[in-house]
């Protein structure tokens, strides 16, 4: 008999928090400063509030669909075509996340520590992790997240606390930075930084109960928001604006500053460890979810025969962009500006359609019973 995988909200929260917060180690603090100027931290708070509001609407609509993922709901709402179309959208989002992050992590890793290694060599480590992670499946991945993500969180907070000596609150002035419209109108689309919440709607069958899904969503959004806001706050108080815009890897540069007496120096090695762990978990879980979505959207019996071919496709797609700048441009200016549509608008529309379909079929059942 096939064993059904179920895990709790600790594991699921660890997955979502890692998916949302990995961008802290890449470019989130700089992106927030680019958008909001010295008020980057206000932008981070604002998009967190928007994401929580969006999730509140979605979880209210989700109540009748306990234990169903987004593909099940798409099928209920629009039949096979709905399932396939939503499958393609999710595959695109996850695929982009995997390919872009893998390239960015590898390029940054090359920049910091593996300076003479070729890019293909660095990416090979990621591919091995993808294949092994996908082979072991979601249960092993969720347990690994539950264990490793708290260690990453402690490492991150250590770096943030270590930078306290370099904080200058005056760097936060003028308080509204680039202006109210840059923060609250143009900045609103940066809620896309929370678009990984989409994964929660794929994990719903593993969480089984509606209450677990709801608490997982809120916990992971609040914890992620806390980390994102702290990262921007520390970055923009340590490095004055606009010189902070020239920093490629913000948290790495914060970590390099830390010197606490004779014994606590070169803290960037902690950063390297948590960064590598976080990125490997991000890419592995994303890749597993690509396989899961592919299997479910196209009704396949197994996903394991697709692990190797899809890993090779992901690796090849990594080499398609001509350079690192192209990936960052597409990631920040296109994907991180518009991914709120598949993450928030698509689930809301599907849930509304699904509820309508439910009501229609309930009405038809009642009329049949009255006739008989």
């Amino acid at each position: 008999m096939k064993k059904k995988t179920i895990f709790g909200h600790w594991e699921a929260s660890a997955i979502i928090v890692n998916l949302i917060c990995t961008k802290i180690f890449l470019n989130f603090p700089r992106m927030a400063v680019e958008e909001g100027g010295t008020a980057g931290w206000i932008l981070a708070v604002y998009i967190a509030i928007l994401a929580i509001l969006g999730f509140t609407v979605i979880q209210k609509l989700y109540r009748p669909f306990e234990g169903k993922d987004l593909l099940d709901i798409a099928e209920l709402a629009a039949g096979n075509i709905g399932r396939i179309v939503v499958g393609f959208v999710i595959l695109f989002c996850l695929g982009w996340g995997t390919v872009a992050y893998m390239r960015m992590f590898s390029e940054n890793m090359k920049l910091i520590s593996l300076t003479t290694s070729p890019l293909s060599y660095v990416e090979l480590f990621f591919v091995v992790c993808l294949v092994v992670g996908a082979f072991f499946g979601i249960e092993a991945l969720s347990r690994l997240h539950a264990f490793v993500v708290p260690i990453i969180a402690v490492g991150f907070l250590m770096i943030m606390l270590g930078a306290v000596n370099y904080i200058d609150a005056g760097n936060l002035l003028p308080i509204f930075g680039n202006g109210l419209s840059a923060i609250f109108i143009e900045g609103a689309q940066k809620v896309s930084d929370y678009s990984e919440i989409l994964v929660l709607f794929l994990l719903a069958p593993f969480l089984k109960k509606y209450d677990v899904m709801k608490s997982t969503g809120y916990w992971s959004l609040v914890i992620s928001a806390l980390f994102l806001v702290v990262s921007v706050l520390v970055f923009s108080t340590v490095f004055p604006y606009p010189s902070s815009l020239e920093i490629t890897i913000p948290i790495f540069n914060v970590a390099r500053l830390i010197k606490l007496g004779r014994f606590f120096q070169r803290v960037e090695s902690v950063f390297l460890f948590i960064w590598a762990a976080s990125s490997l978990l991000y890419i592995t879980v994303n890749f597993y979810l690509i396989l899961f979505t592919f299997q479910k959207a196209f009704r396949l019996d197994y996903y394991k025969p697709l692990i190797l071919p899809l890993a090779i496709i992901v690796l090849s797609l990594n080499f398609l962009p001509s350079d690192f700048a192209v990936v960052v441009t597409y990631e920040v200016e296109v994907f991180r500006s518009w991914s709120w549509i598949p993450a928030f608008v698509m689930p809301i529309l599907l849930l509304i359609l699904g509820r309508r379909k439910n009501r229609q079929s309930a009405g038809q059942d009642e009329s049949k019973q009255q006739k008989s």
Partner: protein
Amino acid sequence: MMSIGYIVLIGFLLCIAIYTASFGVWTWKRKNRFGAFMIFMVALIVVVLPVYILLFREA
């Protein structure tokens, strides 16, 4: 000029494509036509994309 490394790599990719296609055939026989079509697409891309990058992009 093609090196022996490229030939080995393309051979490896062909093996994976054949393995994937066989899964597609199995899915086709189970009457899942669209699923099988998608698997055949994966089998095709797994050869075409790396070969394109190896031979054309590197040049």
